């Protein structure tokens, strides 16, 4: 009788150990202490910016809890256009993640393994989430002024690309994206 219990306890300890091995806990300071590659003359770079100007025209639709300059900057610019070193094989999402981490901007995303598109979905940046400003709102991205019609973690960037992350309140119509209308 006792032996059986012992087996169960051992199994539970093993399961807990596996679970703990899989979790990686870091303090906030540790997480944000990332190294950003220095820009050298021979390094490949891209430009990235994050804007939410459309919210400024739709203040009435914005979630009341977000009605503050802290979450929606008065000029609508969350991250000024800035230059970052492009690493081999970096996607638009990798660049965004590195940029927000370097600037301590909050960002939440759904991992690529969790949806049918096999691509990361950016749910919110700087506490501004999908549906925070009306039912048609969310984050979209442009590369060199064009909206690529696929997920940000599937778009591999090239040297000199300009990535813009923009918040739409109207399924892309208010940020100049045409193809969403047909869908």
């Amino acid at each position, binding site marked *: 009788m006792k032996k059986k219990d012992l087996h169960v306890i051992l199994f539970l300890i093993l399961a807990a150990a596996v679970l703990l091995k899989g*979790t*990686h*806990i*870091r303090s906030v300071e*540790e*997480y944000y202490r990332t190294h950003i590659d220095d820009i050298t003359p021979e390094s490949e770079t891209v430009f990235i910016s994050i804007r939410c100007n459309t919210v400024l025209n739709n203040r009435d639709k914005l979630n*009341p*809890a977000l009605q503050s300059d802290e979450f929606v900057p008065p000029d609508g610019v969350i991250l000024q256009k800035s230059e970052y070193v492009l690493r081999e094989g970096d996607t638009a999402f990798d660049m965004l993640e590195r940029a927000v981490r370097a600037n301590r901007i909050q960002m939440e995303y759904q991992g690529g393994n969790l949806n049918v598109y096999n691509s990361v979905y950016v749910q919110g940046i700087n*506490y501004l989430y999908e549906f925070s400003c009306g039912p048609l709102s969310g984050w979209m991205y442009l590369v060199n002024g064009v909206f690529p019609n696929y997920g940000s973690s599937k778009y591999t960037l090239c040297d000199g690309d300009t990535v813009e992350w923009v918040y739409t309140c109207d399924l892309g119509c208010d940020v100049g994206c045409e193809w969403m209308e047909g869908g």
Partner: protein
Amino acid sequence: MRAFESVHPAAAFAYFISVLLVAMFTAHPVLLCEALLGAVLFCAILSAKGFWKNMASYVPLFAIIALSNPLFSHNGVTMLFFLNGNPVTLEAVLYGADIAVMLIAVIYWFQCYSFVMTSDKFLYLFGKAIPKLSLVLSMALRFIPLFKAQLIRVNRAQKAMGLYSGKSFTDKLRSAGRVLLALITWSLENAVETGDSMRARGYGLHGRSHFALFRFTGRDGVLLGISAALTGLTLTGRALGGADFAFYPRITGISTAPLSLAVYLAFGALTLLPFIIETEESLKWTYFVSKI
């Protein structure tokens, strides 16, 4: 017999529905704490026996809900630490605790409901208007208490037969699994049998009447009026923004504006109503007994 059990079914039903309607559709911590307090006090009076043991079983439920929310929700400005690259925030933990309070409060209210609104009362209210649905509902609401009673019975029978009576933890678990299996078969069979039995007795046939000893007295009218007024006050106050509260991205403070205070007071009075009635009745009883 408790005082609230002698209230007319219509008044009692209206009371429970209005409390549950407010409690289930708000996330305001003050209102939810009031709902929990009222339900716990009411439940303590209705089921004095086994109340504390019952309460202890809700602690793990509370912990599970409160701690699982931050694993799925990463919104919130106060980051505590990062778990696998995702922030665990204070706001998410508090929101989880808030939802846990809501769930437990609602569970307690339904416990009180099943004590007070026995199936005969429910059938009295809705048996004529919606005979099929009211039968299904009253059977469904009766199911959990029935399941529990049968669980104890099966357990005892198994113990008496000497099955898995060892002290080993594993054996206990296995015996619980066996009991559960027996219970599920029993409940399926029971449902069919109940249906057959009801049909055999002519339930829901046209032209049948039934007798019930419920009379709508002035006291019931007063209770109905008070609960309707308090619910109306709470709902209007809420519609006017008196109970606005946001957890994400930053917790808004608990408002102390007059409108909010009125909402808290109205809903607090509404949830404490049964407790007040019961206390009043028991005080009266002790007073009369002391005179004998």
